């Protein structure tokens, strides 16, 4: 199978590609920073706001426990949200770009 030759420089300047990588970069790094900040609030909060973590919310279950548990749900939600956006937007833009190049 012969390797297809691409003009990478031209593709990199293609408006569709610029749109794709710009959208991706904003989404990926933005949400990555969000998730990191949210995660580091856990050890920081446990160390510097123990009073907050001790507040009982339902029965014996306290804020700290719910916050730690929420980390799992936030991570899962973010993963699903990313999959949704990527399947809908990023993959569509990529497909459109590839179709345009093959013309």
């Amino acid at each position, binding site marked *: 199978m012969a390797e297809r030759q691409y003009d990478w420089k031209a593709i990199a300047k293609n408006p569709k590609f610029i749109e794709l990588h710009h959208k991706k970069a904003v989404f*990926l790094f933005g949400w990555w920073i969000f998730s990191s900040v949210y995660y580091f609030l856990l050890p920081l909060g446990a*160390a510097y706001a123990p009073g907050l973590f001790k507040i009982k919310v339902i029965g*014996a279950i*306290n804020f700290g*426990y719910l916050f730690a548990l929420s980390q799992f749900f936030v991570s899962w939600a973010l993963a699903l949200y990313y999959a949704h956006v990527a399947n809908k937007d990023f993959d569509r833009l990529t497909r459109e770009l590839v179709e345009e190049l093959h013309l």
Partner: protein
Amino acid sequence: MTFKKIIIAATLTLSVAAAAFAEEPNKAPSASAAVTATAAGAPAVAAPGMTTPAPATAPATATPVKKKELKANKVITLSMFAVIIGITLCVVIWAAKQTKTASDFYAAGGGITGTQNGWAIAGDYMSAASFLGISGLISLYGYDGFMYSVGWLVAYITVLLIVAEPCRNAGKYTLGDILSFRTNPKPVRAVAAISTVAVSTFYLTAQMVGAGKLMALLVGVPYRTAIIGVGILMVGYVVFGGMTATTWVQIIKAGLLMSGAFLLSFLVMMKSGFSPFGFFNDIVNSPAIQDHVSKLVLKDGVTLSGIDAGQRFLEPGLFLKNPLDQISLGMALVLGTAGMPHILMRFFTVPTAQAARKSVIIAMFIIGGFYVLTTLLGFGAAINLTPQGIISVDKGGNMATLLLAQQLGADIAPVVGDLFLAFLCSVAFATILAVVSGLVLAASAAIAHDIYVNVIKDGHADQHEQVMAARVTSLVVGAIGIFIGLLAEKANVAHLVALAFAVAASGNLPVVVLSLFWRKFNTAGVISGLVVGTIASIGLVMVSPNMTYPKVVAAGAQKVIAAMEKKQAALPPGAQLEENDAKALVTAKADYEKNKDGTSMMGLEKPIMKLKNPGIFSIPLGFFAAILGTLLFPSRRSEEMFDELYVRQNTGLGMAKAVDH
């Protein structure tokens, strides 16, 4: 083919021999498994005092604290091991027939689906430390154990958002493939291979030593036999079955692990009438937990009792006392997982970026679900077995899950207890096999593909030669792994997992991210980033509290001596110390004599760095070195080739086809 058959036969013989060894009436050593990286546990002197029965004022519902015992039924356990070995060997024979090209060997021909890869990632990632260690931490220290587990899942956000898809699009088999794309390939591949081998070796050593100790504890196999048995199976899987066999071993293990965790959680919740509130009430109202916590906080000069002490179990600070260390570990996890060569390698096994994405998301649900269940297991163990009972078996709590299975099963019928314990022992066994195989494969790929094929042979090697090189390398890497495992029996390996993550986070991750996203990044940047990040993490760990400091050991021994002598003085004249105490005194005296004038491996009396986890210093250093190297030695070629890499990683155009149809 005949060579293959001989090795398979040898593997089988050895497994049988290992089983025969196990039949010897060998007393399993108790309280010695160092499975978890954080198994700091309670000081030895505290353990006997904690097993005193709950005070008489405690409600009558209190379970009387008795010495627990972990007793695996050897016949059942070993038959289950045999079933696992049998199934996996069938997989290997099947996989061996399909492994003809280098792509088959390293990437299963790109023929793994997203779902399969998700299970395999989970199987590759969840080691015995997370399976046994984290539930143990929760059973002894409550909330802190749970908090510790969170980072292991959040780490996958970085994998998902930053590395998985670009690596699938831009890479082929190894870390070196990605890094050498627009750099001078030979030096970059060589350095990348060294870093991969370093990370894999640290991780592998920790896993091998944990495996040996765990098997010795569970089924009474001698440590050496366990290491050799596990080692031979691991080598067999990788050498013959390559990535296909490794993947399926990991999938089988993840399935077993999740079934075990679900079943056990179900039994735990049944005890609390399937009510989360009932469950938490059981925790705070358990007199044994209250007693355990009040003794824990007493060491910090806090007096707590009754329900307040029980509630304290659900609050932070019983185990993780240094927030900076927590943040440092968190950084190593969040960035290190995405730099782990054996995790990166899994993304080359799927055909497309979409499949890579799907596989991370599936892995996140499995891994996260597992850690949520782990909370139930850890707290369930604390309620049903009491922390004192768990400590009496293992100071670090590593046996909590297994004890819980034994007890909850036995509550149904004694034979169910045996079966359930045997099942979880086999899960632990499968876990070890799956994790070590992945590591051997990653290290071998770096040596065979990067160093042999691309550096020594300039990329001129036919498929047959490449596969042969990969097989021979796996054999050698596996043999070295076994050898290190045998040598390290008595070594302090607890810090090695954290070290592996630190190296991956400080060395590998910065250069992967910069090669994928920074136009100017070049050869000098890769090399300086990898070298500085790796050396900084190793160097910092060498001067950290993870190493053994003889003077500190001596001071600890001195305390034991003083305590025992005080006990002796309090006895009526002529009376002798109890056997255990007398033994402790003799050991402590010997420890003191041996260690009083010693220094650590680095010639230090006490650690220079206060943190156990170097990430907070070494990660920024790795990034800084990579950036500085790039700016000092700019390369036009690297900049010009960025467009190609950037388009490829974003779109998957021109992707290295794993299968050539």
